[in-house]
């Protein structure tokens, strides 16, 4: 790569952790951030949607990779060290994929980064890397301030950067006073004031260190891409946002007087630093300024944070900032729908490089004056060559990071350590599992989240934060009985009624079908404390289900009044207006919801429906198209899109393209009931038969003590591996095929599979008892652990296989839920089979609770 190419494109990516438009906008109006104002006038600005959990190391890694945390592997602030004996701040060596600076290095670009969280030990990129352990002063000013091994790459430049560090004790009143009001009132003998001054000094010194290193690189090193990260806004907000105006009644007036300007001042300081950087870079540099999340600065500031791992992050708000200027970028425009996952794909596109299809973000094409061509490859992870990363045999300095842990403890991100290292390691492992579950929830991958949360719950049943997330996942996946169990678990922890419990109970009873009771719970919560947006949203949700549309709209509006950025509330208002046939208002609200959070497939689908009603067919097609790209399995969106292209818009080529992605409707359909033996498959067959569906059974295996109402089997099914011709004879009957045989299903049929799920312990115990009754086994009282694992593997394999199959759809039905709440499960089955002729009353009558024999046995054995 010659200098000629290097000089063509320069991108400067600046990160301001926790920067928030709610703080910035009034400052822009007052002229207090002139540099940022100029940048906005010459470029685009917008919200940048964050991810959950909103933890900086996790989010900044998503920004630099374009991937969700379960792909990049950074879940929290800490991790066990390589020996597993102790814990340390999270290291870049735990990142499982390539970052933007690795890809650009591979492509020959001169690439530098400073302070990214995490970036220690500094990666051997094609430029300069200064790790996030660089700026922390851990010694008094008169003591030797060593720099950790691995802080700077290339190592020979270490001395240059060592000299550019600013020590907090080097600062004077001239640096601190701009952050304070009434500084003459500060009593340095007072412990509180002393602690706060120390914190402010550290924050200013740390970001001044980053600024010094960054400006040195921009001025003296060759660079095509540079990423500079500042954590000071976040740290100042965590320490001092509580003193920010307006003063809340519980904040002492004297502290407010002294510290209410700190947050404003740190923003002003960042504007000054930004000015210096912009002055240094060539005029045709693309400059992108982002924050990973916002920070509540108004009435949404929590008065306290929940006691859960990294609970401090509750102070964060879901929208960060995005500003971009440079060649080809629009001027003075607001953009919508950007996510922090989009930053890396967009930068790759600026350099003309393809996006990895395994990246979760998209190119922000709408920031450019002219739409750009987007190239893609399956994955950058599969590309051969040097990506300038640490090799697997890189030896890490285990001792180096210990002192940096204290910083995280001081900030409140991690709890103080125990003297027992083993306990610390276990806590960190469990916390990271919890965070990983949250990343799955955030991505709508509830099954994966449930798997982790159930394990955590089993090991520590008394953790409220796990119970609440698990309950949420069960509710979303319609496992109502299990959600009900979580209500009981919550009540065991909290005997007193509180709003969290009331909201949870309201959601559970709503799903159980008792909407009036649900409304009562939520209204009780409103009476107790009405200023929580979640409560009004759930109230609206219940009213919507009760078909009280106007009241629902009022409730959602209250939620929005409290938090104008509540996307779900805007979406729900849109749904309510659609139902009362006010389609224009429906469109308006869906568009607002999409503006807040673009990656919301269901909102795009609902928008499409409202647009269709307004006969805006091209726009509707665009909305459905967005939906299907975000959620390729959204069959309804694809069906509507096909209809519009085929019959309304006269676009046969596009119609054919959509049709190719739809299930093959010309193939014959077979309804299958499946599951492990003894998981309730016979009961389901019996229910379908009672409902009026025919069953494919030869009656050879007759009812016995084990299956008192019959087996509903067919001998031909057992030989499916070598002969599946019987499928032609199944017709519109339901056929029972046990789980392991599903892998032999041929591809020339469409399948609707009702898959029975039951606790594996219950299944094995039931099988064991059946075999014992049949005298096929001795008197052995325990069942095989190997069999348990085999079954578990089979189930996982089925889920994995059928998730991606175009010609099969699966409905997972929980056996216990059928027994306990058949009234809830049966409508789902009817909907899944798209067979409204099924007699649900007769199906309900078949469910026999006395058949549930193993439950108590399992519980006691």
């Amino acid at each position, binding site marked *: 790569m010659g200098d000629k190419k290097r000089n063509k494109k320069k991108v400067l990516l600046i990160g301001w952790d926790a920067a928030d438009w709610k703080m910035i906008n009034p400052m822009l109006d007052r002229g207090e951030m002139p540099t940022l104002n100029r940048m906005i006038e010459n470029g685009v600005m917008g919200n940048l949607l964050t991810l959950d959990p909103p933890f900086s190391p996790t989010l900044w890694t998503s920004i630099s990779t374009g991937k969700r945390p379960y792909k990049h592997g950074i879940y929290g602030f800490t991790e066990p060290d390589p020996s597993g004996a102790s814990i340390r701040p999270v290291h870049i060596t735990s990142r499982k994929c390539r970052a933007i600076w690795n890809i650009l290095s591979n492509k020959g670009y001169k690439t530098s980064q400073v302070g990214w969280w995490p970036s220690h030990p500094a990666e051997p990129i094609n430029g300069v890397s200064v790790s996030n352990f660089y700026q922390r002063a851990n010694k008094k000013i008169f003591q030797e301030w060593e720099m950790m091994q691995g802080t700077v790459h290339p190592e020979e430049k270490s001395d240059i950067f060592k000299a550019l560090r600013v020590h907090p004790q080097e600062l004077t009143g001239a*640096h601190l006073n701009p952050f304070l009001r009434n500084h003459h009132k500060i009593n340095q003998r007072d412990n509180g004031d002393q602690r706060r001054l120390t914190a402010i000094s550290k924050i200013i010194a740390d970001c001044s260190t980053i600024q010094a290193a960054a400006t040195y690189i921009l001025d003296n090193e060759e660079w095509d891409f540079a990423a500079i990260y500042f954590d000071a806004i976040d740290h100042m907000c965590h320490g001092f946002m509580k003193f920010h105006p307006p003063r809340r009644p519980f904040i002492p007036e004297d502290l407010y007087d002294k510290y209410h300007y700190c947050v404003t001042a740190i923003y002003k300081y960042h504007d000054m630093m930004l000015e210096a950087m912009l002055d240094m870079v060539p005029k045709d540099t693309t400059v992108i300024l982002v924050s990973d999340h916002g920070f509540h600065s108004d009435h949404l500031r929590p008065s306290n944070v929940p006691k859960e791992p990294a609970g401090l992050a509750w102070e964060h708000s879901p929208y960060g900032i995005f500003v971009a200027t440079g060649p080809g970028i629009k001027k003075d425009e607001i953009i919508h729908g950007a996510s922090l996952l989009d930053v890396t794909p967009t930068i790759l596109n600026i350099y003309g490089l393809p996006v990895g299809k395994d990246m979760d973000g998209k190119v922000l094409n709408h920031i450019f004056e002219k739409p750009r061509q987007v190239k893609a490859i399956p994955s950058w992870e599969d590309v051969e060559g040097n990506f300038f990363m640490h090799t697997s045999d890189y030896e890490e300095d285990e001792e180096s990071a210990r002192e940096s842990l204290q910083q995280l403890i001081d900030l409140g991100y991690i709890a103080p350590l125990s003297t027992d290292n083993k306990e610390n390691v276990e806590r960190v492992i469990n916390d990271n599992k919890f965070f990983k579950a949250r990343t799955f929830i955030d991505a709508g991958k509830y099954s994966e989240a449930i798997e982790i949360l159930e394990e955590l719950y089993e090991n520590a049943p008394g953790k409220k934060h796990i119970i609440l997330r698990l309950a949420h996942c069960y509710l979303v996946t319609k496992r109502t009985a299990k959600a009900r169990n979580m209500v009981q678990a919550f009540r065991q922890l909290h005997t007193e009624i509180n709003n969290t419990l009331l909201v949870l109970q309201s959601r559970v009873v709503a799903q159980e079908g008792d909407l009036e009771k649900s409304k009562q719970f939520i209204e009780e919560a409103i009476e107790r404390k009405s200023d929580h947006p979640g409560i009004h949203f759930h109230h609206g949700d219940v009213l919507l289900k009760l078909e009280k549309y106007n009241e629902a709209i009022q409730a959602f509006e209250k939620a929005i009044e409290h938090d104008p950025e509540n996307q779900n509330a805007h979406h729900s208002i849109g749904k309510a207006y659609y139902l009362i046939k006010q389609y224009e208002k429906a469109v308006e609200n869906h568009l607002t919801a999409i503006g807040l959070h673009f990656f919301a497939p269901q909102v795009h689908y609902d928008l499409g429906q409202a647009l269709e009603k307004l006969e805006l067919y091209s726009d509707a097609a665009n909305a459905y198209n967005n939906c299907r790209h975000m959620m390729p399995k959204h069959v309804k969106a694809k069906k509507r899109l096909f209809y519009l292209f085929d019959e309304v818009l006269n676009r046969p080529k596009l119609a054919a393209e959509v049709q190719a992605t739809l299930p093959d409707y010309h193939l014959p359909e077979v309804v299958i009931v499946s599951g492990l033996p003894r998981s309730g498959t016979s009961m389901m067959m019996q229910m379908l038969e009672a409902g009026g569906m025919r069953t494919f059974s030869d009656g050879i295996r007759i009812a016995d003590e084990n299956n008192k109402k019959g087996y509903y089997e067919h001998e031909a099914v057992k030989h499916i591996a070598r002969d599946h011709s019987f499928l032609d004879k199944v017709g519109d009957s339901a056929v029972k095929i046990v789980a392991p045989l599903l892998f032999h299903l041929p591809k020339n049929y469409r399948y609707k599979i009702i898959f029975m799920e039951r606790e594996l312990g219950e299944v094995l115990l039931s099988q064991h008892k059946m075999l014992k009754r049949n005298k096929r086994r001795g008197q052995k009282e325990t069942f095989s652990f190997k069999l348990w694992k085999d079954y578990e593997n089979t189930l996982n394999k089925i889920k994995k296989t059928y998730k991606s199959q175009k010609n099969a759809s699966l409905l997972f039905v929980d056996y216990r839920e059928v027994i306990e709440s058949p009234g809830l499960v049966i409508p789902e089955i009817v909907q899944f089979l798209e067979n409204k002729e099924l007699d649900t009353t007769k199906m309900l009558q078949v469910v026999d609770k006395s058949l549930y024999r193993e439950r108590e046995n399992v519980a006691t054995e």
Partner: protein
Amino acid sequence: MKYKSKKKSKNKGRQMLDENGNWVDIPVEGSLGLLASGYKGLMAWREKKKQFIESQILNETKGGGQKKK
């Protein structure tokens, strides 16, 4: 306020120009503007502090010598 660099000269040490090309009087106690300007501002400030301390020592030495005299 923004600063532009001026390379170290033998007589004046590290100095800075403001955006209008005027010499900036670097305060011994430093300023946020200097830190915000990056490594140049930091180095100029440290240089100023060093010069100031050296001059103080020199003055003290001179003053002390006179007293003795």
